[in-house]
């Protein structure tokens, strides 16, 4: 269809060129793309490479180094002296509780905002959406005093509560956007059968909104797994510290074990990178949806 049209117009090459670029251009395109891709990924490669080196091997001339033998001791050190398993468990616990509660609360809020009819609906929704503008750093100082009053300093709740609160605006935005596309007829028939609103939400809406909930959970997982400032401010003892703190174990005042530091950094980076690679599509959809609506 298209070729005949362009042939008729006497420009046969134009249409073809668009679909099949010349080989030179194609090679150039791929070189440039691979170049930047390498720049983006290089630090990760470097990180993993150095996590297998002996501390003494660090200060040579070359940038990447083939290790004489894989220095697994770095990882052993990370697991023993760096308390990686303990800190990782803390990180997992805090992040999981956060994303679960945030998902449930966002679904409830979204349902109230999308389907229910009440007076302050719009105002309440606007108020929560304002939360996307508030920088988390502005709440660090007052929350420190607040948690001090409530004896929550050095308690996982001092992270879980603000994490959930700051997850709500964006999560609610994405889930309610999805909910608007669900036809009302399903719920109407459920009401006929005598289902309550909570029954509708948990038996009908929850299964349908699964894709949106998954997106929200993955996004929240990545942002809270990586959160550092609040963890650094509100946690003081070893008991509840999260994963990033295990690096600090190897940056002593007198000696630094670089090999183990790199091993720890690799261990911190891997969970989010793997999660992202497994759920690339959901992440991308969530980010663009959240961005466009916000």
């Amino acid at each position: 269809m298209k070729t005949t049209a362009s042939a008729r117009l006497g420009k046969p090459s134009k249409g073809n060129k668009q679909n099949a670029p010349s080989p030179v251009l194609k090679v150039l395109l791929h070189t440039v793309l691979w170049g930047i891709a390498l720049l983006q990924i290089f630090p990760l490669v470097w990180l993993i490479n150095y996590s297998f080196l002996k501390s003494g091997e660090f200060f040579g001339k070359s940038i990447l180094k083939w290790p004489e033998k894989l220095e697994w001791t770095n990882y052993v050190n990370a697991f023993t002296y760096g308390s990686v398993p303990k800190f990782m468990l803390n990180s997992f616990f805090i992040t999981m509780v956060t994303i679960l509660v945030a998902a449930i609360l966002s679904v409830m809020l979204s349902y109230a905002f999308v389907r229910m009819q009440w007076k302050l609906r719009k105002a309440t929704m606007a108020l929560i959406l304002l939360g996307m503008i508030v920088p988390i750093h502005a709440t660090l100082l007052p929350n420190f005093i607040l948690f001090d009053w409530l004896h929550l300093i050095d308690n996982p709740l001092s992270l879980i509560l603000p994490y959930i609160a700051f997850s709500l605006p964006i999560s609610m935005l994405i889930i309610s956007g999805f909910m608007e596309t669900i036809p009302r007829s399903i719920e109407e028939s459920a009401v006929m059968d005598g289902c309550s609103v909570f029954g509708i939400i948990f038996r009908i809406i929850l299964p349908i909104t699964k894709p949106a909930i998954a997106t929200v959970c993955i996004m929240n997982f990545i942002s809270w797994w990586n959160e550092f400032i609040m963890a650094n401010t509100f946690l003081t003892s070893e008991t509840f510290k999260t994963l990033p703190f295990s690096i600090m174990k190897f940056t002593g005042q007198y000696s630094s074990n670089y090999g183990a530091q790199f091993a720890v950094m690799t261990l911190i980076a891997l969970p989010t990178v793997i999660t992202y690679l497994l759920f690339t599509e959901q992440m991308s959809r969530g980010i663009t949806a959240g961005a466009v609506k916000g």
Partner: protein
Amino acid sequence: MHKLLSNRITVFWLVAPGLFLFLFMVCFPIAMSGYYGTTNWKGIGSYEFVGLTNYTNILFHDAVFWRSLWHALLLLAATLLIQHPIALFFSILVMHSGRFEKLFRAIFFIPAVISIVVTSKMWVSVFHPNYGMLNKILDGIGLSAWKQDWLGDPQLAIWSIIVVVMWQGFGYALLLYYAGLQGIPKDLYEAAELDGAGRISLYTKVVIPLLTPMVRVAVVIAVTACLKQMETVFLMTNGGPVNTTQFVGNYLYKTAFSSSLYGYGNAISVVFVIICLIITVVMNKAFKKDVGEF
């Protein structure tokens, strides 16, 4: 159905948990900041009310505060003038990269999902004056004269930070533009082709103008992200040397916890939130002008 959906008690139980948590963890702390911002509290002991002195000092006498905002502006300028055009260009390239499309998208985004603790540590080692990779590369290609103390030089440090932030956010900007490109119907390309538009004019005259809505979204996100910048600076330079890389979030943290000016730090928090709110509202108003549908 209607009766069920306007039941006030149901609405209350749906909204209350989320809203209460949000008010308690986001709004209440800001109000607390407003209160402590009017005192000269040092973090311990008794304090006096000083009225609006803290606020007027921030706005009229605090050079570091304005400098922090200036740095956010520099970062924003670099993001919009360097990162975004490159991201836009690469999103177009990625679209044409055939079977590697997904792979490239994933690779470009990976830095954005890695913990800032890891990336900052990594970049600190890259910039290290003696052992850092950057100076090693300069040595390797015979440009030893260009070697610098990248993070220790008051003139250079802010630019080193800007490079790191741009590197980490690159995939995010690319993802937004890529999503924008996906939203442009394929037949528009074909129509432009039929009209005899060359490849370059196809993009400059047809595609990029159609991307305007997405560009606006990306700009709004960039502005808030630049204002809220803190972690990278906190972990790489902590605002130094002598506040040449200071950002508002880091400044208020330092003021309260290192300089023990808790009241003053809270006042900065409040001003910070207000600035974020004003800028976002102004931008949304300015960008509200409707764009053509396609």
